[in-house]
């Protein structure tokens, strides 16, 4: 099995541990990830705030690059915002030929053509559909028994295109969590918005969404997520949310490949928990206690 890998900009910077742990996880699973040649930004949610056509042309450039590659495989995308932007082009050009024509007019300045032959897949989709949780369970060497893990999906891997999960009540991460020996923390916030870029453009609104999620995850040992934006919002603003709500929120927010990697026995260099902004001592202690190689 192999995939064309589109890391996206966040994974080169603030979400470096997401990329490092994803690459390590797939290596351990024996699946090849080939980085997309000369990839560029997907436009995130900024492009559509400025230009409708660019919000399609920017992700389309990456799809066109993938079509040119020798490796004929799906594109694997870990970031939910990148995933949605690429997926949106893939879906919308199927019926909207005038849109495809305009996109190709823009791409022509870079000598690129979009045909629409490559499929975009979210990391979570690949893990539950192609790899299968049973496969992962068979590779677990250190059980995370005793950990309660809150599965957090966020928005853009679920909506508006319901590809691999229920867009209102997502559950696809659960068999992956139980495969590690951990239990699924019961909550119904998995598909709720984290506030996305409102944390920068309207922080007074964004912080309330963050606080609601942290409040409901209070008794979880960790929140696990598959989106760098969600991860940053939930992790970086815990103090601010705590202050506003006169309480103390302190919960690690891990990327799914970090959790799976830990259970599969990958060492610190491969999952890079040291890059996370919030890993409380209590979490590290529990990890040290239960993570004895079986």
């Amino acid at each position, binding site marked *: 099995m192999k995939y064309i890998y589109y890391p996206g900009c*966040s994974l080169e910077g*603030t979400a470096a541990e997401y990329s490092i742990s994803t690459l390590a996880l797939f290596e351990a699973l024996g699946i090849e990830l080939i980085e997309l040649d000369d990839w560029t930004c997907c436009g995130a949610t900024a492009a559509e*705030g400025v230009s409708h056509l660019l919000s399609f042309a*920017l992700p389309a450039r990456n799809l066109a690059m993938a079509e040119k590659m020798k490796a004929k495989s799906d594109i694997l995308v870990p970031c939910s915002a990148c995933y949605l932007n690429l997926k949106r082009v893939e879906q919308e050009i199927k019926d909207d030929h005038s849109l495809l024509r305009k996109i190709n007019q823009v791409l022509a300045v870079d000598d690129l053509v979009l045909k629409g032959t490559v499929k975009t897949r979210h990391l979570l989709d690949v893990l539950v559909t192609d790899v299968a949780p049973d496969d992962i369970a068979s590779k677990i060497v250190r059980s995370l028994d005793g950990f309660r893990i809150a599965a957090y999906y966020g928005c853009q891997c679920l909506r508006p295109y319901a590809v691999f999960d229920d867009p209102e009540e997502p559950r696809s991460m659960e068999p992956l969590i139980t495969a590690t020996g951990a239990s699924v923390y019961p909550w119904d916030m998995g598909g709720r*918005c984290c506030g996305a870029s*409102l944390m920068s453009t*309207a922080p007074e*609104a964004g912080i309330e969404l963050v606080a609601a999620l942290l409040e409901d995850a209070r008794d979880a040992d960790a929140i696990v997520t598959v989106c760098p934006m969600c991860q940053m919002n939930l992790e970086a603003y815990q103090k601010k949310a705590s202050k506003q709500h006169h309480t103390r929120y302190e919960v690690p927010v891990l990327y799914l490949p970090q959790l799976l990697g830990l259970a599969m026995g990958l060492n610190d260099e491969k999952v890079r928990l040291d890059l996370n902004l919030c890993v409380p001592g209590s979490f590290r202690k529990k990890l040290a206690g239960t993570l004895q190689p079986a």
Partner: protein
Amino acid sequence: MEAAADIQTTASERSLVNKLAPARTLLLACIQCGTCSGSCPNADAMDMSPRYLWRLLLTDNAQEIFKSRTFALCSTCYTCTLRCPRGLQLTDAMSLLKQVAASENLPLYKRSVRFYRSFMESVRRHGRVREMEFMTLYFMSMKNPVIPLKFTPLGMRLMARRKVSVEIPSKGTQKLDAMFRKAKEIEEQS
């Protein structure tokens, strides 16, 4: 007499109404049920509900729409789009309103418009967004020293982990400049 003055619209208002047409088209089948408002995680922070905003859009009330920050508070979670019983692309309509606010440079939305623009500027220059450059461009455009100060603690934590480093904005290779220009040219024609 007063009523007559109300009805009279200026040329700039008419041009705004024209720019609203693509968003209005998405809303034509709206039945004003309010499922969007009930589903929106940011409704509490909005000065008018999404349902009310759609009503204003359907009645071409550009003046009232652009007094409201409601669409700027859309965090593109797509919950309203998913639940709309008429299957309308409501999140896309919110984005179209954001685009009008950006192209008109309306001061009320300067924070989000400048945020998006700074992001796109870094992408245009380098092909990929450089997170620190983008934030620096954003702070410079806001000309308000309090905003960067609020981000300083987070910036320091990220720098301590070498996830970002201080970055002076640079011209870069203008990697995507040609594409940006072409897109602008096509959009201005249509």
